[in-house]
């Protein structure tokens, strides 16, 4: 398990290779990269700054991953979230989940992303032509994470 908050860019290929290197029991690695877009809520975004709550962030991310580990049989999880100033096109977050079977890898990867969106203390501030604005929490993120409550 690797959980990191960093300002530097990450390397999806290197992270996924590190998970599977020297192992022959992994059948599936589902991964996700979230990127900064140039549009949000209908207006142009020139850059964004990600703020977080050091200490709580790491705790919250560990809890999410541990919850995923209790729900599914996983072989490894890597979660990297960037903070600081990012440009459109820059990668923000990486989640990679290794398992014997693809169904569990996909479910856990999507669960971690959905849970992260509502439970990990990160905040985005966007720079637009009209000035800076803090991004509001999305109802769709609450809906996305609520789906997982129904799973036994």
């Amino acid at each position, binding site marked *: 398990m690797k959980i990191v908050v960093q300002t530097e860019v990450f390397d999806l290929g290197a992270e996924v290779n590190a998970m599977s290197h020297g192992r022959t029991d992994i059948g599936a690695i589902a991964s996700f990269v979230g990127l900064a877009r140039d549009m949000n809520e209908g207006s142009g975004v020139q850059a964004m700054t990600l703020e977080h709550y050091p200490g709580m962030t790491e705790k919250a991310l560990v809890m999410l991953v541990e919850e995923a580990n209790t729900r599914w049989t996983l072989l490894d999880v890597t979660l990297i979230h960037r903070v600081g100033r990012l440009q459109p096109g820059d990668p*923000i977050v990486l989640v990679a989940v290794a398992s014997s079977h693809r169904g569990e890898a996909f479910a856990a990867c999507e669960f971690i992303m959905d849970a992260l969106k509502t439970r990990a203390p990160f905040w985005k501030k966007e720079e637009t032509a009209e000035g800076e604005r803090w991004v509001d*929490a999305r109802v769709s993120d609450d809906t996305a994470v609520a789906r997982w409550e129904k799973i036994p």
Partner: protein
Amino acid sequence: MKLRVLYFARLRERFGVAEESVELAGSTAADLIAQLQARGGVWEEELAPGRAFRVAMDQEIVALDAVLYDNAEVAIFPPVTGG
């Protein structure tokens, strides 16, 4: 009791403070919010009932009826928007 109170993101900017020491008369997170609201201005506005903010104690989200303790780290922030 004495609390270390942290503010993040939009609330940090609006309050103009990232961290402060607060002497709390009451005992719960709701008491703390009420005491901060009583400062008036942006405090009253941002922490008004119905406004969306979260309270964490010792780096875990808690409900407003959570009982605080002396020297606890309490954080108040907007709903999160990471990822």
